[in-house]
């Protein structure tokens, strides 16, 4: 493998890590506020479908993005209604949302487009094009740094840069603003937040809706930037990988970036080399696909550092009366 190959793999890793990163940060907001969300997958899928459908209908990727965010927020609102207002089981609600998205996208897709659950292929302005960073062409011939800048960093869709920018933004919101402090507190000890006169319900809904926005962007990236249209089940377990990355990152934004890049790299390597030969031992591609899940189980088991979720996670808050 030479340098150009390496750049190519890293480039595709960054591309593949983007939806994971967005979904992972979405889960971060939700779970930091004490709402477990295994419905990331479903929200991403719904957003992918509606963003592709809207982008096709309007010819604008940006309107597609808005539609995708809207769809994800509707599902987020259902999750909020079930887990905050009606104090239902958050995990069961998440399972239901995944199924709802999985079935609904095909049922509605077939009605609208009659393509077996697909949307028509998107082209031109209906997709997010590649953004050339400034001077990308000028520095292309500089050794090492040139390819890194012009091939690896430049030439991604705008959503990749948005996702990268959301990492410091998430850190800043969570750890440097009053809203973030309260949001984290509501995931650790909602009663204390309540006593301080701040609305637990309001904060939790805010977190769940932010989660909707971010999974919405993630889904739009899948259908209008990474792919050219919606394909049945196109999220393909990425919501669960994002959840795995969240545990890996121990619910912290910068670590989330690292974990998602790692999982993106695994996916890129798995896509490129169907079978990897390590010292005469043949690693099948299925093992590479399963690796994020295996790593998560190992992390969860506490063999590599302990991952402790927010304390009030999964618990509906019942105000004392």
């Amino acid at each position, binding site marked *: 493998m030479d340098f150009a190959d390496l750049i190519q793999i890293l480039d595709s890793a960054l591309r593949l890590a983007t939806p994971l990163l967005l979904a992972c940060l979405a889960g971060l907001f939700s779970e930091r506020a004490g709402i477990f969300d*295994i419905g990331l997958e479903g929200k991403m899928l719904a957003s992918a479908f509606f963003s592709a459908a809207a982008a096709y209908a309007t010819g604008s990727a940006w309107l597609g993005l808005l539609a995708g965010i809207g769809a994800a927020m509707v599902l987020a609102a*259902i999750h909020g*209604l*079930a*887990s905050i207002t*009606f*104090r*239902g*089981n*958050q*995990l*069961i*609600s998440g*399972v*239901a*949302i*995944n*199924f*709802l998205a*999985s*079935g*609904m996208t*095909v*049922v*509605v897709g*077939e*009605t609208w487009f009659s393509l077996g*659950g697909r949307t028509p292929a998107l082209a031109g302005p209906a997709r997010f094009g590649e953004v050339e960073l400034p001077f990308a062409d000028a520095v292309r011939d500089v050794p090492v740094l040139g390819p890194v800048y012009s091939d690896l960093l430049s030439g991604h869709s705008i959503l990749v840069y948005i996702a990268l920018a959301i990492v410091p933004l998430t850190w800043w919101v969570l750890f440097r603003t009053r809203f973030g402090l309260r949001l984290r507190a509501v995931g650790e000890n909602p009663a204390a937040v309540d006593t301080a006169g701040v609305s637990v319900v309001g904060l939790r809904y805010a977190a769940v809706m932010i989660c909707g926005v971010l999974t919405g962007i993630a889904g739009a990236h899948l259908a209008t930037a990474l792919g050219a249209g919606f394909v049945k089940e196109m999220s393909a*377990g990425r919501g*669960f990988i994002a*959840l*795995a990355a969240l*545990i890996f990152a121990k619910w912290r934004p910068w670590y989330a970036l690292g974990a998602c890049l790692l999982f993106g790299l695994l996916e890129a390597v798995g896509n490129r080399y169907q079978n990897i030969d390590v010292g005469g031992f043949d690693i*099948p591609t*299925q*093992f590479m*696909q*399963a690796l994020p*899940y*295996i790593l*998560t*189980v190992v992390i*969860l*088991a*506490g063999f590599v550092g302990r991952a402790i*979720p927010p304390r009030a996670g*999964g*618990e*509906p808050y*019942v105000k004392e009366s």
Partner: protein
Amino acid sequence: MSGDILPKWVDVLLIPLLNLVLALFVSGLVVLFIGENPFEAMRILVNGAVGSAYGWGYTLYYTTNFIFTGLGVAVAFHARLFNIGGEGQAAIGGLGVALAMLWVPWPHWSVALVAAAVAAALFGAAWAAIPAWLQARRGSHIVITTIMFNFIASALMVYLLSRVLLVPGAGGSPETARFAEAVRLPNAADVLPFLGFPRSTPLNVSFALALLSALFVWVLIWRTRLGYEIRAFGLSGPAALYAGISPVRITMIAMLISGGLCGMMATNAVLGEAERLVIDPVQGAGFVGIAVALMGRSHPVGVILAALLFGVLYQGGAELEFERPAITRELVIVIQALVILFTGALDGMVRRPLEGFFVARRRGRPAAAAAVPEPTSPRGADNDPVHRAEP
């Protein structure tokens, strides 16, 4: 806010029925949205599922699958463990069936059925054992680990079928060799010829095995000491610990039984229907089990009824797709999602007004007349089966 305020019939009958009606109502809106008549769709669905012996054959075949996975999820629910891993456990159970059938030349189907059931249960239980141990000993969240194990199982099965167990003559499609003719399970047309099941229906003797399993679960949960311990642990982990019940032991046992029951689904799907191991023999039955257990309030009778309901939905959905091409069979997944949503997550939406109603009604009467709930009433997932105290 437990179910104790409500009479038992409201808890086990009225609320699930109301939830089902809500789910079907919203599904009807979806059908309306895609420009079809919901009543007509319902008629085709029900008629396709139960209107002919052919329909019944498929309906009961699906029901068999769902009884196994539903019971599996239900047993875990009783210990307040949320086993999402039914899908993976059933797939690995299928591996067990295939290995048992391919390695040993069984002389007769009856011996083969027992061997297949044992192998399926052992493999399914083994696949559940790791998440169970991690939950019991290391405090890993069982929901997350079982989800991860579904994916790992799926990757493992693809690997085994495409690289290890593949037969040369299968035309490249990843599947094992066909099982011997001697182990073919009698299907409904063989056993009950007078009922007129066509030969082509996949319903087979595994259905009886499923009913036996339901009986086993009922005896286990309500008539044995172990079942008592599982329920006690499910109601309150700390109280069970005080009573000398080991959380580690109960978590392990409940999950092993749960995984074993989910795995046994493969007896029906792999040995009874496909007669070889193909990619994804489970077809989502592991997830349907969650809906079945929730609807059935984790009681074997409820599970059988809910499994039948989902059997009707699955077979009727296939017929619906055939008759109304505008409606794809994914509509069934939407209905399934809505059933899970309304019975599992939005249960409080129906329950709370009813509780208000019954509290108000009871105040009008002397306290002694109030219905005393049976201490052994099946407590389903009505309030949070998942969150037990972390050790």
